[in-house]
């Protein structure tokens, strides 16, 4: 009997060495499909961007290495004596133009617009002097144009614009507007609006910096433009709120149009309540009617029209609740997990520890799948849950067998292997999942 969900692990990129041998610069820090799903971009801690191109072959789809370029270099801020990391925090694709791909990449401080295109390299095969073998022509009538020959096609990445010096704090998100002309960049305390064509000016649209930094209680954790309405954007905060803002209302959008927050029962507050309520990622669904937010232990689906409570709250890894003290000690409680929503809005995905990640069916309860992005995953044994539960882990290539979330033992989990970054193909159920320095592709 085949499983209903045929999520299969199809590809893995990156060298599959043990965790201790991984070079820090190879750790993938962001993954993003483009609008067609034909290209996949990854950024790593070393400031490099690697692009993969889809090619369809008889076995199905396959992604192949396309090009790689160094997007950001480590910098030193002399005024503040701080190193600026070259780690790529986000990549966002723009619409392709003239056979060239465009994307925005950002590190903590600087955003760059890259154009990636194929260039034909031409070489000079014959010139007037034949490289010294021939005497210069006697008179002007014998002067010939050098002959060029196309030798190879290369993929070149050219930085078209560099948007620098606009952020004091670390940039955590960028988002391109549906109008194709503007984009926003968000750091911990401010959100700026840019025009793609102008790199020396940006507008500040949200500023939550307190007058006295000692009174700091809230930071911005993620921001995104509405996929269809060019005037709406939302941002999430460390206090567990998601605010939707309308740029038509005021130049400075400190007043939110809507605030999505589920007020917690004060009796159940404990030491960790505030930390685990911090939203780490927030996404619009493709139709813009739903918002998916991820905090440390749960995934919440909000209907844009209902601010009071989410439509659905999913417990991602409840078994971690008794371990919060240890997770605070080793800083894992501050990990920022991303979440993804499928192109059709019917499914959502988010990561966990031990390289586990789960795919949830948003339309109805049940039908959740738990997988593991591990090189050994496809060799998992066939195990059946006693009540035929549908949660499975480590789906082998033929799509059968696996374990359940209930079987996960928090003591035996490797908290150094976590799925923080991932991307969902916009048009089909294919997932690109980053596990430390490896990229896994799963397809349904």
């Amino acid at each position, binding site marked *: 009997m085949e499983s209903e969900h045929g999520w299969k692990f199809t590809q893995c990129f990156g060298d599959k060495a043990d965790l201790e041998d991984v070079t*820090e610069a190879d*750790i993938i820090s962001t993954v993003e499909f483009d609008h067609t799903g034909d290209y996949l971009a990854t950024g790593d801690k070393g400031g490099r961007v690697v692009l993969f191109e889809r090619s369809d072959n008889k076995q199905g789809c396959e992604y192949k290495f396309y090009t790689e370029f160094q997007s950001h270099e480590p910098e030193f801020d002399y005024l*503040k004596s701080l190193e600026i990391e070259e780690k790529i925090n986000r990549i966002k694709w723009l619409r392709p133009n003239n056979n060239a791909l465009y994307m925005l990449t950002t590190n903590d401080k600087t955003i760059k617009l890259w154009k990636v295109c194929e260039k034909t390299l031409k070489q000079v095969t014959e010139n007037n002097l034949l490289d010294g073998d021939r005497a210069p022509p006697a008179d002007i009538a014998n002067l010939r144009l050098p002959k060029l020959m196309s030798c190879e096609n290369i993929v070149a990445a050219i930085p078209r614009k560099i948007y620098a010096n606009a952020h004091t*704090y670390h940039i955590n998100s960028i988002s391109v507007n549906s109008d194709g002309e503007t984009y926003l960049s968000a750091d911990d305390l401010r959100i700026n609006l840019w025009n793609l064509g102008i790199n020396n000016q940006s507008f500040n649209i949200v500023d939550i910096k307190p007058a006295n930094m000692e009174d700091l209680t809230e930071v911005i954790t993620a921001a995104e433009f509405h996929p269809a309405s060019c005037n709406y954007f939302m941002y999430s905060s460390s206090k567990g709120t998601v605010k939707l803002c309308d740029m038509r209302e005021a130049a400075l959008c400190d007043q939110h149009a809507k605030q999505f927050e589920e007020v917690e029962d004060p009796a159940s507050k404990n*030491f960790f309540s505030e930390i685990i309520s911090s939203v780490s990622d927030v996404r619009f669904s493709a139709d813009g009617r739903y918002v998916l937010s991820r905090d440390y232990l749960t995934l919440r689906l909000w209907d844009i029209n209902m601010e009071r409570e989410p439509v659905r709250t999913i417990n991602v890894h409840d078994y971690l609740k008794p371990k*919060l003290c240890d997770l605070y000690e*080793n800083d*894992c409680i*501050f990990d920022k997990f991303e979440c993804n929503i499928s192109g059709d809005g019917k499914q959502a995905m988010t990561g966990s520890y031990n390289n586990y990640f789960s795919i949830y069916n948003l339309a109805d309860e049940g039908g959740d799948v738990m997988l593991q992005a591990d090189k050994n995953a496809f060799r998992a044994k066939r195990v059946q849950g006693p009540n035929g539960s549908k949660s499975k882990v480590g789906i082998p290539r033929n799509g059968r067998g696996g374990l359940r979330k209930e079987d996960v033992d928090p003591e035996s989990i490797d908290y*150094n292997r976590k799925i923080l970054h991932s991307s969902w193909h916009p048009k089909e159920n294919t997932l690109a999942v980053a596990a430390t320095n490896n990229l896994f592709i799963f397809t349904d």
Partner: protein
Amino acid sequence: MRAGQAWRARGDRGQTSEHSLASSTPEDDDCVCWPMDLRQGMFKARTPRPPPGGRAGGEPQPLAWSDYFENRQAVPVGDTRFNVYSSGLGGAGPVFVLHHGAGHSGLTFGLLARHMCAAEPGIAVVAFDARGHGGTAGDNEGDLQLERLVDDLVGVVDAVLPENKRDVVLVGHSMGGAVVARACRRIAHVLGLVLIDIVEGSAMESLHAIPGFIVARPQTFATVGSAISWHIDSAEIQNEESARLSVPSLIAPAGDAWAWRTALLPTEPFWRSWYQGLSSAFATAPAARLLILAGTDRLDKELLIAQMQGKFQLELLPAAGHTIQEDLPERVGDTLVSFWRRNQRLDIPVRRINPPPPAKAQE
């Protein structure tokens, strides 16, 4: 130093970087170095350390006085039977008489007593519950006039240490400091006087804020464990073990819940009397003087002058909250023992240089 190196910090137990968000100069706080990402730094700076070992499971359990003191007795003085904890009364070394502050109890010194008696055999420690606090019972529980408290202290010391020849060191925390400073002259063989976290000027300035604090805290607790948890979570007591020992004596059953043993608001009329004149009483006390502060108080003018004149020893323990003896019992204990050692009376036998002339024969 790389900003935001969260990955490399994994696996390091404990934090190595400062979590202060305060800037060196207020106007250019954009130039402050953020040792880690702002969100993490903000959370860590704003919340106290969580208790060790997960408490998500059960509530903290109370601890027994008998693990910290040898002896507990009811001592009648006047119209009140005082609950007195003590250790080492049979020895020959110095006696440390410990007076707790308003709203506390003798068990606040539990960890301190155990540490000191273990570090220095021969020491005796006496800590009692003051009128209207802890296990002390009697009439006139609300009379917390300074004179009354001083009489109580003198009475308890006389009863517990009759005809005492041992050296005595008086130690008072907060309100207790006001009491021991005045009682100093009325007790025999007082070698040293120690005040813990109390300065007249700062106390007088903050008197107006105390009712607000009293009212803001929860009036009842569902269980003893939740009372202990509240003290720890609100950073009233930073040491979990000490909170588990002392908090149960601060609450009393009220119906099927627990309320505060000592109603502090009705004692407001007495507050001024406690602290007025404390600095001069301390600076002129006929004993060696030691002031232990958590560093958050600044010395008032009188004490500052006295300190410059070398009239007392000042010990700063900035890592502690107000209940220094509970937060850092080992540090306080070591300080008290070395304070006693340094101020011991030297018994130098008198040696005559020139022997007296022999008696002249009668002429």
